[in-house]
């Protein structure tokens, strides 16, 4: 070769040049990809690997009037699945079902209903014991992961109906709230204060730019915008008083259960008479909010639904009942203002009025106006109501706030039922009879009120006619210290002269000193009150037709500070015997002189 075969050398040179040409073409292609289109590919690479993720904002805490923590946040681990990333779902689903203690079909249906690319939270608040098993599952099945998050932590077992709980946002909730920054997978207040003040408590989400690897694991992240923590909610609630109310109510309900062989529920409202600030608000039975915040299991929820005590029912503001004789506060006020009687009038009770019997069937004989309150003589009020007529009575009911929500800062409040002849015609296809008016004047019949509405009525009588708006929130304090106080509606005025309301108060004081409510007589403060016993016919939820009982009250008698309303359903007793002692325990707690130091440092929960 060295001495030359020209043809062979030229062919080698061609091959060599061809090779170099091919390498040059590659270089040109690289120039096009990396230099000319480099920026575009760089953007595509980022799309491939960079996601903007919301940074969750810590939810605001809930505290009582003394600044004691009721609901806070705890770190927690949650099990999530991204349906689209799950490879061998047939094997993964039974493993997940075992871990969650659910049926494979349930897990599969959850996964198939979920958005394919969004992590679906299967279980919040994994316990340490579950965590090991969960880790094994996540290692075995791609698309299943454990994520750190925060869970609501309840520092108290009290007041669950008020505090409520948070849960994952539903598609329906999201539909109406998407424009306000809510997104799939967010927690949202479902019930109670968590729901009412959700937008203040939730704060504002931040955003961060996250580089992920091909498995979606975070490699690096940097914050684009910090999150703003939610505001802390301070309540008017006094947790010591709440504990007293719940304990005494609970004890009475336990006794009733044992005696009646049937579960009863009840409610206690303690409110400032002048302002409507709520000091305690008990509804029993109640539920444990913790399973809800970690994602309640179907089995657990079914158990709550099947519970004959109906623990999911809020008996303070969401349910309404006949007010019974406590309604005589309104009948009396209306009769005095309308001139149907005077504070010094006397009546005769022979035990019945037409076909309607008095509460004391033997009759009260000759009785004065104030004692008719104290002894709860029905015949007097039958007469007054009958004389005044339903329209006038309804007008006073409306003035005292019945037939409409009180406006408390809790979601789902009932308006009760303020019946009218037109209403009866529509609902019952029947006319309004005088007997209906007579029934209504002692709080029986169609009229329905919530315990909270009765507290507002009682406060109006006690404070001289102001119809206050009950208020749980005291203030919202943001993390930067800014304080927001809830707007307070100007209270309505009851069109009843102060001296007439004073006469009603005298009657109520009499009930506690020598009438039906003596069981509420506290050694520490002058209590005034009115008992109520509602006669029921047997029905689906009250098979034996047991009485509901009430005790509405205020104290001190001379210058009322507090209103206390106690309600017990299906109690098979009298308001004076069952409900009044609970009110007394509340007043004892409020007015008893300070105890010796060792027992004074009661803690909540």
């Amino acid at each position, binding site marked *: 070769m060295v001495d030359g075969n020209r043809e062979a050398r030229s062919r*080698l040179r061609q091959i*060599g040049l061809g090779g170099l040409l*091919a*390498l040059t073409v*590659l*270089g040109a292609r690289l120039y096009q990809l*990396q230099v000319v289109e480099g920026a575009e590919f760089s953007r595509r690479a980022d799309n491939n690997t960079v996601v903007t993720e919301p940074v969750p904002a810590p939810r605001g805490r809930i505290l009582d009037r003394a600044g004691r923590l009721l609901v806070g946040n705890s770190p927690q681990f949650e099990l999530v699945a991204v349906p689209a990333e799950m490879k061998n779902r047939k094997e993964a689903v039974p493993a997940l079902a075992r871990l969650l203690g659910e049926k494979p079909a349930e897990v599969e249906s959850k996964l198939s209903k979920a958005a394919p690319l969004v992590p679906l939270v299967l279980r919040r608040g994994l316990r340490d014991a579950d965590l090991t098993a969960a880790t094994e599952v996540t290692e075995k099945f791609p698309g299943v992961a454990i994520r750190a998050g925060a869970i609501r932590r309840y520092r108290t077992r009290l007041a669950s109906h008020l505090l409520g709980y948070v849960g994952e946002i539903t598609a329906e909730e999201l539909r109406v709230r998407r424009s306000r920054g809510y997104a799939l997978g967010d927690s949202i207040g479902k019930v109670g204060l968590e729901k009412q003040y959700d937008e203040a408590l939730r704060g504002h989400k931040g955003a961060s730019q996250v580089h992920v690897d091909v498995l979606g694991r975070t490699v690096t992240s940097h914050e684009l915008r910090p999150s703003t923590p939610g505001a802390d909610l301070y309540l008017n609630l006094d947790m010591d008083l709440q504990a007293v109310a719940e304990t005494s109510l609970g004890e009475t309900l336990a006794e009733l259960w044992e005696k009646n062989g049937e579960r009863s529920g009840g409610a206690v409202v303690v409110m400032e008479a002048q302002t409507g600030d709520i000091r305690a608000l008990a509804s029993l039975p109640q539920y444990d909010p913790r399973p809800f915040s970690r994602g309640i299991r179907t089995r657990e929820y079914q158990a709550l639904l099947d519970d004959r005590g109906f623990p999911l029912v809020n008996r303070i503001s969401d349910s309404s009942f006949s007010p019974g004789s406590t309604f005589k506060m309104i009948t009396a006020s209306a009769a005095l203002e309308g001139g149907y009687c005077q504070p010094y009038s006397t009546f005769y009770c022979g035990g019945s009025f037409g076909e309607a019997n008095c509460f004391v069937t033997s009759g009260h004989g000759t009785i004065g106006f104030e004692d008719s309150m104290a002894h709860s003589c029905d015949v007097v009020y039958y007469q007054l109501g009958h004389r005044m007529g339903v329209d006038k009575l309804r007008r006073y009911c409306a003035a005292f706030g019945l037939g409409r929500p009180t406006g408390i800062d809790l979601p789902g409040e009932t308006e009760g039922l303020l019946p009218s002849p037109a209403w009866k015609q529509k609902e019952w296809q029947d006319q309004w009879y005088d007997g209906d008016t007579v029934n209504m004047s002692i709080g029986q019949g169609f009229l329905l009120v919530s315990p909270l509405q009765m507290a507002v009525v009682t406060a109006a009588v006690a404070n001289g006619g102001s119809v206050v708006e009950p208020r749980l929130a005291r203030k919202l304090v943001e993390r930067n210290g800014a304080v927001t106080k809830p707007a307070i509606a100007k209270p309505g005025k009851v069109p009843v002269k102060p001296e007439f309301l004073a006469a009603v108060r005298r009657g109520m004081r009499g009930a506690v000193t020598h009438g039906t409510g003596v069981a509420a007589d506290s050694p520490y403060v002058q209590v005034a009150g009115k008992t109520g016993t509602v006669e029921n016919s047997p029905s689906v939820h009250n098979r034996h037709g047991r009485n509901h009982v009430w005790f509405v009250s205020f104290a001190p008698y001379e210058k009322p500070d507090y209103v206390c309303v106690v309600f017990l359903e299906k109690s098979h007793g009298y308001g004076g015997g069952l409900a009044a002692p609970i009110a007394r325990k509340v007043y004892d707690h409020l007015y008893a002189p300070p105890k010796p130091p060792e027992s004074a440092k009661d803690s909540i929960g």
Partner: protein
Amino acid sequence: MKSRWFDPVLHIPLAGLVSFLWICLYSATQFGQAGEAGKQAFHIVLGWVLMLLLSRMDYHLWKRLAWPIYGVTMLALVAVLVVGTSVNGAKRWVALGGLGTFQPSELAKLATIVILAGLFAEGFSWKRLGVAALAVAGPFLLILVQPDLGTALVIAFLCSVMAYAAGLNGTFLFAVIGLGISAFPFVLKEYQRDRLLVFINPDMDSAGMGYQLVQSQTAIGSGGLWGKGLLSGHMTQHGFVPENWTDFLFTVVGEELGFLGACGLLLLYAVVFGVLIRSAMQAPDRMGSLLALGVASLLLFHTVVNISMTVGLAPVVGIPLPFGSYGGTAVLVNLAGMGIVGSVRRASRPREIVLSDDPNPDSKN
């Protein structure tokens, strides 16, 4: 003063190429294959020793060794079909007990070069071409049924280039190549046809096969002029480019070292290729020339097809990047090829030195 072992013109650029690629492999293996780069280093050292030993051997021995090597290759290729290990649906590996696995199709490339160089050592004739075609048809078909289209193409390419260099009529050669290409649609298996279609339109299957192509080009393109820095390519380091430690190693160069790094690599390949072609031109005889050319063609074809595939200029065929892609057999075979060229280079050294050092009667034409 020249050393008996050290050939700076060949060894320095080669060492540069091998180290450059090993560093890229090291980077690529950080996501999920940590430790494999060490194994590769072992193979490189082994291959380097093999190269040095082969370059001390008289390359004319290959003429006599060609047919035994051919026999061993055929046996190994049959064995791989019978007892081979299947990876990604293709049977390409034979387990060698404690020694790991061995890829006979790599050996077949070397066998092809040696056989053709031996056959055409005395010049081109149609009879020799016929023998060569019959001989190469064996390994070619056995590789095609593995199936390993890439290696089959390598063998076809080696035959074409070496026959042309030996003196085959250019027009005839292009006619045969044209016929071969037009036969493609009839002999391709369905998955191979799919690969071609996906190559033409990657978006067609951007989540499946096209994903590989799209991710590969994105990674390379995103490297820009300067690259993202070694061990800092986000797509490389976090598994966004599948197979980037084997056939798609070039994406690491593209993403982490940028256009400048990629051009540097191309330049290294060009220098080594140039040295090989020059060795072919300066070889003492036709056999030496053909051996050097065969090794040069092997290097060029792998380099160009592999990089073309990663930048979207060629469909995905299983052709590794020479000296770079993870794989022991390929590294050993490539370095062995360099050793053969080394022996050709030793024989073609200026006579006065060669004569005093290592008289070689065959080099006196």
